[in-house]
């Protein structure tokens, strides 16, 4: 049996007869665990879960994301976070105190920010914060966008993929949970980094990807030198 074939499921596919095994991306009907999504099914901590192959980013508290400022309204910045819901950054969530009339000095419309989701309420009001040393305005580098569902693959198990990329490419890379990726390094390295990231996005569902990417980077670098 083709092991990849076994893994791809469509909504409604029955995954297990044990309702206790219902994990992410599944639902229980008549005591059977069924898939909610079109994606890859796998076992995870004695649960069955389905990882989607496509979909939008839904913010949840604690996520670090990359956003762009869309608008400035009364003591809030409205930030696009690549999601159906826009984020709100209140003036008090900045690391230092600023006046309302100098809001656009610090963050202008169009600025990119590395930012954290502080809270999401039931009406999907998304509160953001910059109150962390690792967060802040992006002034250098480039931002790429991939499907948020492929983010776990880009990071890899325990960060294996992303650490390998950082090392091999000599770039500073940050992957936002919302599928936006910030890359900083010299121009050639950034070109290759973005190219690699797009390959990872395209082949996220295949196996043995980390090694294949390593191989790809080696040949690319040899070609360059």
């Amino acid at each position, binding site marked *: 049996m083709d092991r990849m074939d076994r893994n791809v499921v469509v909504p409604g596919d029955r995954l297990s007869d044990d309702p206790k095994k219902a994990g992410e991306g599944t639902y229980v*009907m008549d005591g059977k665990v069924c898939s909610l999504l079109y994606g890859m099914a796998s076992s995870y901590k004695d649960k069955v879960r389905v990882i989607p192959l496509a979909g939008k980013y839904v913010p949840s508290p604690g996520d670090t994301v990359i956003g762009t400022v869309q608008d400035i309204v009364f003591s809030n910045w409205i930030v696009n976070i690549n999601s159906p819901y826009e984020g709100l950054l209140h003036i008090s969530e900045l690391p230092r105190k600023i006046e309302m009339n100098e809001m656009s000095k610090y963050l202008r419309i169009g600025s990119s920010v590395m930012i954290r989701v502080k809270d999401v309420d039931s009406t999907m009001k998304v509160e953001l914060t910059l109150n962390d040393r690792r967060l802040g305005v992006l002034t250098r580098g480039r931002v790429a966008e991939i499907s948020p569902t492929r983010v776990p693959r880009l990071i890899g198990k325990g960060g294996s993929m992303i650490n390998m990329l950082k090392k091999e490419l000599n770039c500073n890379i940050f992957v936002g949970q919302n599928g936006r990726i910030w890359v900083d390094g010299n121009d050639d390295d950034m070109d290759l980094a973005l190219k690699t990231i797009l390959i990872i996005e395209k082949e996220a569902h295949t196996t043995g990807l980390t090694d294949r990417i390593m191989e790809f980077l080696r040949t690319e670098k040899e070609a360059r030198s």
Partner: protein
Amino acid sequence: MIGMDEKLSFFKNGLRLDGRRPDELRPIKIEVGVLARADGSCYMEMGDNKVMAAVYGPREVHPRHLQEATRAIVRYRYNMASFSVEERKRPGPDRRSNEVSKVSREALVPVVLTSYFPKSVVDVFVEVLQADAGTRTAGINAASVALADAGIPMKSLISSCAAGKVDGEIVLDPMKLEDNFGEADVPIAMTPNGDITLLQMDGRLTPEEFRRALELAKTGCQQIYEIQRKVLVDRYSSMDVPESCDESEGLVEEGI
């Protein structure tokens, strides 16, 4: 030459005008992910019907007043291209396409988990490029695949198919001739479990004929479901894995 008293028939040697058996579907072709801008898309051919479905969302609702606080809304637009039928169709929504949009939306909504995305909208657009009877069923099939492709959470796919009556016989998936000159048309949509989400009828059927038509349409839906499922599964399974990926290596990583 056809004699005056000779009755025109929809059957020849027990086969229909296009050579199908009475319980046979037209050939089906489905392609997934054909539009780059859409979040999910599907191109589908059912016989001579050609439809394109595009799904956008979940995304912000415009105009704002349509927004619902606790769930996503689903909008469905069925539209026929002016060149989709023999005589030019006047472009734009009309009474018929408004109705088809409404019933198609209601055929899909029962399986979509709208509560996962409050205050948002899922837009489904279905464009009929070529029509040959049964465009609403083709549209629903394509839209269901496109919704899955967009990663929208659903309880199951939806499959849709019609049965009709011509020359006193119940047939599956009537084509244009049979639809135009036949006695009845019963389009349905259902989940793979057999829950019906769309049921319409035009023409006349006895209760017994209606039951047979419904059963026949259900078998058609099941066949379509298998094709829909296969297309989605094959899309990622048949993708070429470069040769450097050897089997044993893959198995280890699968355990993640």
